[in-house]
């Protein structure tokens, strides 16, 4: 087991863009991890509980639940797009401050557009 020092409390940091994108990357990752068992159950129930699948599908199609799925997609997509930024950083690309800001705002913009398309797809 590692005995690395613990991170200082988040609230002592001044909220800057990179820090916001880092913590939201973690939060969106946690949200998606929590959703995994539910999604796996949805697929699995096709085999082991056909009537359960029908009930779950009905539940997924409630407008309120669809609204949750929009937030779910926004979080997942944020994690994926921001993850691509970390891929660039892995190869030490896009690390200049102006590039970081440009990429980060692009992530937000692309995500909003993609989430709009996702919302339209599940509501139409």
């Amino acid at each position, binding site marked *: 087991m590692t005995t*690395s020092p*613990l*991170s200082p409390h988040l609230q002592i940091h001044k909220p800057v863009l990179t820090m916001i994108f880092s913590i939201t990357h973690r939060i969106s990752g946690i949200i998606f991890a929590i959703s995994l068992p539910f999604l*796996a159950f949805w697929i699995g129930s*096709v085999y*082991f509980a056909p009537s359960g699948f029908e009930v779950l599908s009905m539940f997924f199609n409630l407008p309120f639940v669809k609204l949750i799925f929009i937030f779910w997609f926004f979080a997942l997509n944020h994690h994926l797009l921001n993850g691509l930024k*970390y891929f660039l950083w892995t190869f030490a690309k896009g690390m200049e401050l102006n590039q970081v800001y440009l990429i980060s705002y692009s992530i937000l913009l692309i995500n909003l557009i993609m989430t709009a398309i996702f919302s339209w797809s599940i509501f139409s």
Partner: protein
Amino acid sequence: MKGSTKWYWQRVSAFILVPTSYWFVFFFVNNLEASHSLILNSLNSFFVKFFMILFFFVATFHARLGLVTIYQDYFNEKKVKLYSRLTDILLLLVILFILPVILI
């Protein structure tokens, strides 16, 4: 596992998850209103089985690495162990639920 090994596999799994996650979202949107027989039919295709298994297995692996890293950053060793075990149970469920896709 060494920190650098974790770091490496976190990126390898992320790379696989970029196309597979978007594929899953696409499958999800397409089958949200599908009847049982319709979705069972699409799950019979080798392509769908392959991507489904790849997505859930790699996502589970990636989630385990990521979540434990978060625990290690904010909690003491005792709690890290406890939360890691709880995470294992949660992720074991994911594997159990998705297993019929390969077996049937």
